[in-house]
């Protein structure tokens, strides 16, 4: 590898990382738009804080856990260590690795933040900040890196041939599994489900901002999927990168269409919030293998993702009565599984191995996240008082109204 190749790949990787960092803004806007105005400052604070915690924890221990190099104990639990005080840029004595270690870290750290962002949407409007942030410490410093190691760090999932190009499983299903655990332990928002089985609709307060969030995620996903090729310096790599961009875009478009068409058929209207979830679903669906399908197949994989997310949202909300204000469990979890299982359609991965990957990521995350949350709950509780929840968490947790002149 030449210096220029190293330079190009490093440039490509930090740029991809910057796009993924931008997804933090996307999740923030999406969630701020889909909650009620009395909880908007709170969810913004949650997102700013979780991203920051992810960055600190991954530097302190997460990165090393996930990519321990030769220090690994075995395929299931990696070794310990820290990158905290190390100037990663200095490490690349041998630039044949393909890109700067610091670029690699930066690209990886924004992924763990993405996984954590998924949780914040699901627990919106009813989980206090401090317990949430404590959970974020464990999730980003331990739970995520361990299963990340299984696949991307060279652990057992990688060894058996589980395919997950950019993380339909490692990032999205992981985040959604933790979200499901959290929602089950927390329970629904006050007033959401009546004792008579009735469902109260709680509408998002700012649709254009939620849509902006979806567009930000869409843009950021080019870095998420594109960067996961990890190199662009050869014709093959460049071609792969370009196909990934093409397919990522096509799948998102398919997802939007799947969701709004099914909405139109079933309700006579095109529910924009479903269109938004559809875009995200299309993106999640293609993430496990964005490099192998043709554009047409990518569109279809995304479109099916958009249909799935519609039914999943309704099913969780109306049938299971699992309260997920932004549809995070459906868009990242249900559709994450679809993405993992769809890779054989374009010849990547085998059905059985993919299923093992999905199940193991789900179980690991669901169980460890659930256990962590139960411990935090026992120590300090997770929810505000019902009065504080009714009044909105902006007042009790943040002290700042999101829109003091419009809705107070």
């Amino acid at each position, binding site marked *: 590898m030449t210096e220029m190749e190293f330079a190009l790949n490093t440039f490509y990787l930090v740029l991809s990382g910057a796009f993924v960092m931008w997804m933090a803004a996307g999740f923030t806007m999406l969630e701020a738009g889909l909650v009620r105005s009395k909880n908007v400052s709170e969810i913004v604070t949650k997102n700013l804080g979780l991203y920051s915690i992810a960055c600190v924890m991954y530097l302190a221990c997460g990165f090393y856990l996930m990519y321990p190099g030769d220090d690994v104990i075995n395929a299931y639990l990696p070794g310990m260590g820290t990158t905290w005080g190390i100037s990663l840029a200095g490490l690349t004595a041998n630039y044949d690795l393909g890109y700067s270690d610091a670029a690699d870290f930066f690209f990886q750290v924004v992924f763990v933040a993405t996984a954590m962002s998924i949780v914040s949407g699901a627990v919106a409007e009813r989980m206090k900040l401090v317990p949430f942030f404590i959970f974020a410490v464990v999730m980003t410093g331990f739970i995520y890196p361990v299963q990340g190691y299984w696949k991307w760090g060279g652990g057992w999932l990688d060894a058996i041939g589980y395919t997950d190009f950019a993380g339909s499983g490692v990032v999205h299903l992981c985040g959604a599994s933790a979200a499901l655990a959290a929602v089950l332990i927390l329970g629904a928002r006050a007033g959401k489900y009546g004792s008579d089985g009735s469902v*109260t*609709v709680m*509408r998002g307060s700012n649709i254009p901002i939620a849509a902006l969030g979806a567009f930000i995620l869409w843009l950021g996903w080019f870095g998420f999927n594109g960067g996961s090729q990890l190199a662009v310096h050869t014709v093959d790599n460049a071609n792969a990168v370009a196909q990934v961009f093409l397919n990522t875009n096509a799948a998102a478009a398919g997802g939007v269409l799947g969701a709004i068409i099914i909405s139109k058929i079933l309700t006579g*209207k095109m*529910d924009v*919030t*479903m269109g938004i979830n559809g875009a995200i679903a299309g993106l999640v669906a293609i993430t496990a293998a964005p490099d192998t399908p043709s554009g047409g197949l990518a569109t279809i994989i995304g479109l099916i993702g958009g249909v799935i997310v519609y039914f999943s*949202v*309704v099913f969780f909300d*109306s049938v299971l009565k699992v309260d997920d204000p932004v549809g995070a469990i459906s868009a990242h979890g249900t559709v994450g599984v679809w993405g993992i299982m769809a890779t054989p359609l374009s010849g990547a991965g085998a059905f059985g191995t993919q299923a093992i990957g999905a199940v193991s990521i789900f179980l690991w995350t669901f169980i460890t996240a659930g256990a962590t949350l139960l411990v935090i709950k026992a120590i300090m509780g997770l929810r505000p008082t019902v009065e504080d929840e009714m009044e909105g968490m902006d007042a009790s947790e943040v002290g700042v109204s999101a829109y003091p002149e419009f809705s107070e």
Partner: protein
Amino acid sequence: MKLVYIVVRPSKVEVVKSALAAINIGGATLFDVRGFGASRGHTSSYRGSQYVTDTNPKGMLMVACKDDDVPNIIQAVRDVANTGSIGDGKIFVNELSDVIRIRTGESGEDAIMEKNDD
């Protein structure tokens, strides 16, 4: 004097205002309100769940006037705000004991009459 509350469809607030001006009503105070009445309940859906909205946006005008103006007001409002469909709204007529113009301290009917030097 009377204090008259006029509840109409939001789209009719402008024309009611003009109609009042046309019969020399000197002023009014406007409220954004929601109403429910005979026209109760339409069903919407959000994220696949149905819900019922039983209120509709309405506009309300509060008008202080002389007793004699009341029939004119009722007529003027009905002329422009009556669409014949449920939800056109209602007019509520109350006794008004006194009015004071804060700027001048005038009270009674003087306080709601426009003078030329205004």
